[in-house]
């Protein structure tokens, strides 16, 4: 049986490099990811942690593959909710492809071992990626603060 998977595709009028930076650099994630930041050396095999705005550890894992600005694969485990952490490792693949007419196709695929992480990321990714699209296209965020 295939693993529970969340897939989200969005199209952004921007370049692949800018979309990559908006997803990875702290000055962008501070805005688009509701204050969270990555802690990693951005090379294959390096440890990866996602730190929330208040300093809590949200997720941890490892950079599995990195090919800026096209592909990033993360080994990913939730750290702040025990019932989700219990499900163990997931795999998150971010793919950025240039489309015709100055747009890029951004695909986030999150494969998990259980339903709880999928439920959590199904709430999170649309918010974050809506923000990335708005920030790059308009200079503004759609969601300045996280609303449930």
């Amino acid at each position, binding site marked *: 049986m295939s693993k529970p998977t969340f897939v*989200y*595709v*969005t*199209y*952004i*009028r921007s370049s692949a490099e800018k979309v990559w930076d908006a997803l990875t650099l702290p000055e962008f994630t501070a805005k688009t990811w509701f204050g969270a930041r990555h802690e990693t050396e951005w090379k294959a095999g390096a440890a990866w942690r996602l730190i929330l705005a208040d300093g809590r550890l949200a997720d941890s894992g490892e950079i599995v593959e990195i090919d800026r600005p096209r592909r990033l694969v993360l080994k990913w485990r939730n750290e702040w909710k025990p019932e989700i952490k219990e499900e163990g490792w997931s795999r998150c693949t971010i793919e950025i492809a240039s*489309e*015709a*007419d*100055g*747009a890029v196709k951004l695909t986030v695929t999150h494969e998990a071992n259980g339903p709880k992480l999928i439920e959590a990321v*199904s709430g999170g990714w*649309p*918010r974050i990626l*809506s*923000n990335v*699209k*708005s920030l790059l*296209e*308009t200079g*503004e965020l*759609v*969601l*300045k*603060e996280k*609303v449930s």
Partner: protein
Amino acid sequence: MSKPSFVYVTYIASTPEKVFKALTDTEATAKFWFGNAVTSDWKVGSPVAFHREGKLILSGKVIENDAPRRLSYTFTPHHGPHDGSDTSRVVMDLEQQKNQVKLTVTHDDFAPGSTVFASISNGWPLVLSNLKSYLETGTTPLYAPWYEENAGQKTEKVVS
């Protein structure tokens, strides 16, 4: 086995009224829905039709209209590999959240053996990415790859 269901959520800096109008307006849909202009009086039971360059692309019937919170219609594609014999269901839920609208599109109720699921899984992210750009920036950034004659079409500024 559970029935396939496609769900897509996007957040738009707009109001439910504006998002609902864009989804139901002939001129607006022509702009962000890749030239597919919708016509309907949007009463429950009334027909819905999307035409592109005079050709019928999609047809359906209004199932529910609770403007500006919820719109549902049946969905029968007539273009590409689809011959108008395969009907499924679209539900659009709009929720105001502070300065933004959470738009959830749920597409389900596919006929057994339907080939529409694969088409709409590619289509909705394009249409809804364009809708978000249309409402936030006044431009539609994308072309639809399945209308090849339109590939490379330049973005048009919307005059509003």
